[in-house]
């Protein structure tokens, strides 16, 4: 298996753009990634694109915007982990030696999707979806258990959102650059109690892109390539095996796989970008990722260690909560943020001396399976 590097990253604007096509948003991200590594479109040999809603030859539609055509293109859907899946697809192609240079795209137009302005349900035939299950209702039920079992309070959940909104203020590309207090978050509109509006990620249109290559090509373009140390993707197990809905079996397993593959310890990680679609979730993911001992996620949050400037900054980009969450784009976008820190180019939100970073995504609801039907982790290093 060959080593793989990320040499180009790009993001479109994030926000609500009902008049822009997915191809236009995706094209903007790909153009930024090409410009970032200064390679011509003709050098791209393979493309994977992820999109959740209305997907139909998305890769081809995006690539034609920037002069990339007539090559192998694959479209994937894997809920919120779609972007991670596209990235991993390209990584596998290059690691296996099939191609030398590839492009991963994640794109979503939430405002023009069938679920625009709604609570995200499971797939349309899903039984529990008909019975009232939505993404926020699941995480609200998780939040109630966090309060019952682990002593969490709604103010703790709000604290995650305060932190990530503060981070978003330092990111020029964030959808929301506004500070909020714990009180403002608690007093925002109730969505599924105890989850309020400002504890939920917004509906976002946007795209992200990454260009991956083998080390020979990377060295020709940059003196500081960022290497992919681990690429993992795992599906969830049966729901009945998840006795405690606060503990993610798939999230825990995929973390072990990633650390083992990368040959790094959780304490070696300098920054984390993760799925914080709902504020309470981030606290549990600290534990899955072994950033702290099991059940100690609340302590880690309250200690301030996961703020920019803390021991292990989590979601320095602003996360899905402030930067925005175009579903399939986020899996690529989290990796782009980690790359930026490893290069030392993250500006005001830069993690000092970052050498190893982790990008995680979790996604999907299916009746009968644990929530988080997919989990993916990439570990990158300079």
């Amino acid at each position, binding site marked *: 298996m060959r080593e793989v590097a990320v040499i180009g990253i790009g993001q479109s604007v994030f926000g609500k753009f009902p008049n822009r096509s997915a191809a236009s948003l995706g094209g903007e991200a790909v153009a930024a990634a090409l410009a970032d590594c200064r390679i011509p479109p003709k050098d791209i040999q393979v493309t994977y694109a992820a999109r959740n809603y209305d997907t139909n030859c998305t890769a081809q539609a995006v690539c034609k915007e920037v002069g990339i055509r007539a090559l192998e293109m694959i479209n994937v859907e894997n809920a919120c982990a779609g972007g991670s899946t596209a990235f991993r697809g390209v990584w596998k192609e290059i690691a296996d030696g099939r191609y030398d240079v590839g492009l991963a795209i994640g794109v979503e137009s939430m405002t023009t999707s069938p679920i625009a302005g*709604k*609570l995200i*349900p499971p797939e349309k035939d899903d*039984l*529990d*979806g*008909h*019975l*009232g*299950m*939505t993404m*926020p*209702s699941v995480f*609200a*039920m*998780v*939040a*109630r*258990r966090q309060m*019952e079992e682990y002593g969490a309070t709604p103010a703790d959940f709000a604290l995650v959102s305060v932190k990530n909104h503060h981070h978003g203020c330092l990111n020029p590309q964030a959808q929301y650059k506004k500070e909020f207090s714990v009180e403002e978050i608690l007093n925002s*509109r*109730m*969505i*599924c*109690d*105890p*989850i309020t509006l400002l504890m939920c990620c917004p509906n976002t249109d946007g795209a992200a892109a990454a260009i991956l290559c083998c080390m020979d090509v990377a060295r020709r373009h940059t003196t500081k390539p960022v290497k992919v140390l681990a690429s993992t993707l795992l599906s969830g197990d*049966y*729901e*009945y095996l998840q006795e405690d*809905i606060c503990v993610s079996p798939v999230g825990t397993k995929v973390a072990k796989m990633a650390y083992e593959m990368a040959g790094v310890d959780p304490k070696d990680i300098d920054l984390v970008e993760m799925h914080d679609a709902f504020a309470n979730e981030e606290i549990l993911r600290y534990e899955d990722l072994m950033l702290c001992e099991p059940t100690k996620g609340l302590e880690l949050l309250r200690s301030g260690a996961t703020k920019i400037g803390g021991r292990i900054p989590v979601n320095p980009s602003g996360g899905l909560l402030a930067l925005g969450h175009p579903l399939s784009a986020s899996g690529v976008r989290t990796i782009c943020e980690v790359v930026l820190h490893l290069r030392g180019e993250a500006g005001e939100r830069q993690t000092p001396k970052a050498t190893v970073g982790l990008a995680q995504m979790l996604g999907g609801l299916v*009746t*009968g399976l644990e929530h988080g039907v997919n989990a993916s982790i990439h570990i990158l290093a300079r």
Partner: protein
Amino acid sequence: MVDAVIVREGLFDDAEGGRLLGNKCASCGKVYFPKASFCFSCFGTNVEEVALSKRGKLYSYTIGRMPSTHFQPPYAVGLVDLPEGVRVFAPLKLTEADTFRIGMDMAVVIEELWQEDGKLIIGYKFKPA
């Protein structure tokens, strides 16, 4: 007369005032709801229909304040643990707001869930027992 249709076949019947129907592995005893086509736990293929307990304990819940696919707010949904080792996701019957608490006894009811194209959609809910 308005037509009534059930939300999905094979999930419940109206015996004993309405009960959920799962299935049980004849080899290892694992119970499933909704029914499994074979035992996901031991891969046994001999599974038989069983009626589930009508009462369980509330594992978690939330009250929705924005519409879901079929429900207008406020509506409650939750997870109920049945003695057979099965956790069921279901709408909860909302009588007075905020009367739910984790661990409380719940009982299954079979009734109208919503109306669609002039039809009553019948399914299961849980209410405080």
